[in-house]
Structure formats: structure tokens, C-alpha cells
């Protein structure tokens, strides 16, 4: 068994260092960012995932150089209010602000850019967090169509819209790097409410999806991506039954999964929660060779992160910011 483990570790390391990291480095654009696909326009989200992956394996000048350029990209693209927009031509910040902050933190850049980004996250409130909205919801005739509590809210994808599982998870994941003492009572309360929102939005039986957990009394089907990030955001609560149920769903679902994204995210979660990983490195490597579609930058980043034994990116600490 140990021999198999050693072989697998070697295979993972070779795959990361010979395939994933060179692919990421070679796909970086001149402006320091990455597009969703190699050769495409730079965007904040793929740049964040590439930065997180490269930071996880930060050795050698080439990677350092790529990271420096990426930091420059984030600095250049930050909007005056501290946020980042999903596409450089957009004028309003969005959920990618969490990812940009996370990437800056991973690359060891605790500058005013990071502080301004985290402050924006602190101030950013979804459209469903206001009293006016809740009052209107109470009066709406269709309020009972989807089962969810209006008492909880987290973060939205775009300003002024509703809270959703993924952007809330990203915000919680980056805010987790701040020690509790650095958070105001209000911020601590907001984080608690956001975690409650995640539990409230869980699909019956475990896992999360991109929509509502139940509509017209019918349970929604969970999906890998929101389930993975919600579980990572709730890592400290691993003893709760909801976590256990969701991990069980993810483990069971891994048998049928056939995409690098889902394989990698499933592996990351099962690994950090101490379960047996679902897709070994040699299978990921084999899939890449067989694939007739180029891996996207986030896919390559997630695969590289899934093969890290350290998982530093999930244990970052920020010491210079108070919210």
C-alpha cells in the first residue's frame, strides 16, 4: 500500500511540474493576467486560480516572475472602490474581488490593494440583505415556491442581486485568513449569518447547487462545484451532520464524474476532510492526454491544487488587515 502511495505521489509531482505548471506559465498574457483559455483576454478569475496554483508550488525564478506579473495585473485592474470586475472593461466590482484578494494573499502580497479589496467585501451587501427587500418578499404571492429562509444572506455574484452559495463561499474562504481579533463584532456576525445561509441552502440529503435547494416541493440535485466550495468554506464545522451528508454525496458522485474540474475539486475536498481521494494523479494525467478540448486555466489550476500535499492555499493567514 505504501509503495502505491509513493508511486502515486511521484506521479502527481511529475504531472504537476511537467504539465500543469508549465501550461500555466506559458499561458500567461503579457499584461500578467490569464484568460479563461490560453491565448484569450486576461480576466480576474482565471488569473486568481493560476496565481493560487503557482503560489502553492512557488519554487524557482520562472514561477516567481510569473507571480510578480500577476500581482501587477491585479494592481492595475483594481477599481477605485477596492473591488475588481469580472471583465476588465466592466466598471463595477463583483464576486471576483474575493478571488483577487485570495490570490494576493497567497502570493504574499499584503499591500493596500488587499486591504482595499477586503474592505469592499466588508461593505458589499447582496440585494436580499435589505429590510425593504425582505418586507416585499413577505408580501409576495410566490414567496413559498422555493424553500429558503430570508433571514440569512451572504454575498452575491454581482452587486444588488441575491446571495448565492459560491460567491458566499469564496468570501468566507478569504475572510477565514483573518484572525477573529481582526474582525469587528459586526463582521463576525455577518460571517455567522453567511455560514447559516450556506446550511440553509443545502440540498435535502447533502450537497449544494447553483440554484434553489427546493422548488415547488421538489428537492434540487447537488452539483460538484458549489458543493466543493461550500464544504471548504465550512471546514471548521466538520463535525456537523450536514457536512457528513455532503461529503458522502461528493464521494458517491465521484464515481460518475467525468471532467477535470469536478475530479479536481472533489479530490481537494476529500483530501482536506481526510477521506480517500477519488481520482488518482495518473488518471488525471491520462485524461489530459486523451482530451480533445484544451484545459481551461481554472481547470489546470484546480488540478494542480488538487495534487498538492500541503494545501497551503486553504490555510493562509493575513496579519495586516482589520475589518
Amino acid at each position, binding site marked *: 500500500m505504501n509503495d502505491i502511495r509513493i508511486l502515486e505521489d511521484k506521479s502527481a509531482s511529475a504531472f504537476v511540474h511537467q504539465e500543469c505548471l508549465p501550461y500555466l506559465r506559458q499561458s500567461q498574457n503579457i499584461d500578467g493576467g490569464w*484568460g*479563461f*483559455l490560453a491565448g*484569450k*483576454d486576461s*480576466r480576474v*478569475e482565471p488569473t486568481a486560480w493560476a496565481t493560487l496554483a503557482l503560489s502553492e508550488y512557488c519554487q524557482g525564478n520562472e514561477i516567481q516572475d510569473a507571480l510578480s506579473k500577476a500581482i501587477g495585473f491585479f494592481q492595475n485592474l483594481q477599481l477605485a472602490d477596492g473591488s475588481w470586475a*469580472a*471583465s476588465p*472593461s*466592466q466598471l463595477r466590482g*463583483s*464576486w471576483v474581488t474575493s478571488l483577487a484578494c485570495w490570490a494576493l494573499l497567497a502570493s504574499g502580497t499584503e499591500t493596500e490593494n488587499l486591504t482595499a479589496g477586503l474592505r469592499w467585501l466588508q461593505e458589499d451587501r447582496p*440585494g436580499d440583505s435589505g429590510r425593504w427587500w425582505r418586507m416585499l418578499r413577505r408580501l409576495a404571492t*410566490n414567496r413559498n*415556491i422555493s424553500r429558503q429562509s430570508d433571514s440569512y444572506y451572504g454575498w*452575491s*455574484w*454581482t452587486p*444588488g*442581486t*441575491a446571495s*448565492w452559495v*459560491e*460567491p458566499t463561499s469564496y468570501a468566507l474562504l478569504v475572510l477565514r485568513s483573518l484572525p477573529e481579533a481582526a474582525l469587528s463584532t459586526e463582521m463576525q456576525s455577518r460571517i455567522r449569518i453567511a455560514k447559516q445561509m450556506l446550511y440553509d441552502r443545502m440540498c435535502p440529503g447533502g450537497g449544494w*447547487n*447553483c*440554484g434553489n435547494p427546493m*422548488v*415547488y416541493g*421538489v428537492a*434540487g*440535485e447537488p*452539483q*460538484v*462545484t458549489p458543493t466543493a466550495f461550500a464544504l471548504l468554506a465550512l471546514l471548521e464545522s466538520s463535525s456537523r451532520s450536514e457536512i457528513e451528508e455532503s461529503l458522502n454525496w461528493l464521494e458517491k458522485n465521484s464515481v*460518475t*464524474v*467525468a*471532467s*477535470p*474540474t*469536478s475530479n479536481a475539486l472533489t479530490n481537494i475536498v476529500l483530501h482536506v476532510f481526510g477521506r480517500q481521494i477519488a481520482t488518482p494523479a495518473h488518471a488525471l494525467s491520462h485524461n489530459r492526454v486523451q482530451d*480533445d*478540448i*484544451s484545459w*481551461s486555466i481554472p*481547470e489546470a489550476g484546480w488540478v494542480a491544487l488538487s495534487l498538492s500535499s500541503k494545501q497551503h492555499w486553504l490555510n493562509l493567514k493575513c496579519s495586516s488587515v482589520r475589518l
Partner: protein
Amino acid sequence: MPRTAPPLLPPFSRPPSRVAIRRVTSYQSDLSTLLYETVSEFALPVRGRTVLLKPNFVGSDPLGMMNTHPALIAASRETFLRLGAERVLIADGPAMDRDTRAIIESVHLREYVGPLSRVFVDLNVDDVERTVLRTHASRLRELYLPKTLLAADFLVSLPKLKTHHWAGVTLSLKNMFGVVPGSCYGWPKNILHWAGIDRAILDINAAIRPNFAIVDGIIGMEGNGPIQGTLKRCGTVICGDDPVAVDATCARVMGLRPDKIKHISRAATLLGHMQAEKIQQIGDTIDQTCNPFAVLEAFQYLRQKPAARPSNVN
């Protein structure tokens, strides 16, 4: 060169539309011949052009009632290539799952279409371009839309025949939500819901103007669609060069009143014909193919007795 969007015209100043209904028993039928013969009747200007097929991909679908069936996508692609298109792309940006790869693997698209690397585009992560909207039915004023979509010469909406628990039905007009990129607006594309689904459907369709629609009604979904409904065997393919007329016809085939479906009646003010007397029917008739779909209690008002049937010109 990007296509020129057709003008926005009220119904009284546009010529009648044509919609074809074809009965098809299964996805194993000779869809390529049937579609080629049907689409040829419309004399579409696709020779030497780039055609973009926009199917409806939602998620894992073992019963085949949620996503546009890959057999119909492949037959549509073959049809436009036979009609002289230089390139036929398949492109979608699923709204409810960002792992598009997992969806296209689960529907076995490659098995029907062949290698996907130069054929399939994930619109959720394509490069984007700011697009000022031509109508202001919703509060949206602009959208960042995929460059591949904007650069295509000819856009074909290729939806599934389904009921929808917010919009009543989801057909060729609602299918255009899938062109709005998740990488700018998230999953789901919640900004469209906050802007008002019915109004946003008009704004998006007025901006990008699909040139043709082919609706997969061989197997559809009734009840609590578009994801949690029940399989409905309808045995039809419905197509035409006016997406409003196609959707109105689909609604009639589903036993529903298009004038009661907000987004269809709203789109009919500027984008196409909803009135039966303005739609020339080709092929099978609505009477021959009408197969009422079950709808949720909240949408029972759609099921009132339909108005006059359109004339059959074939």
C-alpha cells in the same frame, strides 16, 4: 464580419412568418434528412457563413428530457454544412452549472458530433464585448456578451420543448439566456432574474436576434420544468425563421395560449408574430400534433382554450 441585426418591427409592418412542424417518433429517426428537407424550404442565407447553434444544456440528464438531444444538434450541424455554411459552431453557456465540460460529457455530445475542440464553445468563459441593449424593457442597459456569438453570421436557437416554473415555458426565446456569460454574471445568471425574466428575454433577443429556431420536441418536459419536471413524449420538431412565431406555435402544440405567456407576448411587440393568422404553417398541423403539457397550478391560466388555428399552406 458580424451579422447585421434585423430591424425591430411592430407586427403590422412585418410580413407573415413561416413555421414548420414535423412529426418525429424518436432520436433514432433520420433526423439529418428530415431537417435538411425542412430547413431548405426557408432558403436561408448561410452559404459561406459562420453559423452558431445554441442548444440548451442544463445538466446531467439520464432520461433525455432536459437538454437538447445531441442527435438533433448533430443533424442541425450537418444540415447547415450541407446548405453551404463554411463553419458551424455549437455554443452554450449553461446557467445552472459552471462545469460545462461535465454536462457535454454527460450528454455524449462528442459521440454524435465528433471531436469537439474546434466545434464547441463554452459561452460562459468566452472573451466578452460590451453590448448596448436596443430595447429597455428591463432595467438592463448593457450586457457583456461572448465575442464568438457576436462574430457569428447566423444564429440558431436550438432549445428543448419544456415548461418553466418561472417563465411558463422555455423555448427559443428563453434559450437565449444561455448566451449571457456566467464568468461575468455568475451561475445562475441572477442579474437577469432581478431585471425581470420576461423583460430580460425581450432585451436579450432584441440585442442578438436569433435568425432561426429549431425546437427539440421529440421528448420534452412538462410540469415543474425546466429541471425537475416530468418526461413528455411529444414527437415533434418545430422550426422557423421567426423565433416568436416558433415559440407561439410550440405553445399551441403544448396546449397553451402564447398570448398568456408574458415573454412571448412581449417579444411579439417588436420581434416577430404571435398571432396565429400571421403564421403560415408548413408540414404537420397544430391539430395533428397538439399534445397538451401538464403545467403547475400557478400556470393553469395558460391552458385556456386557444384562439383560431393558423392556416396550413402545405
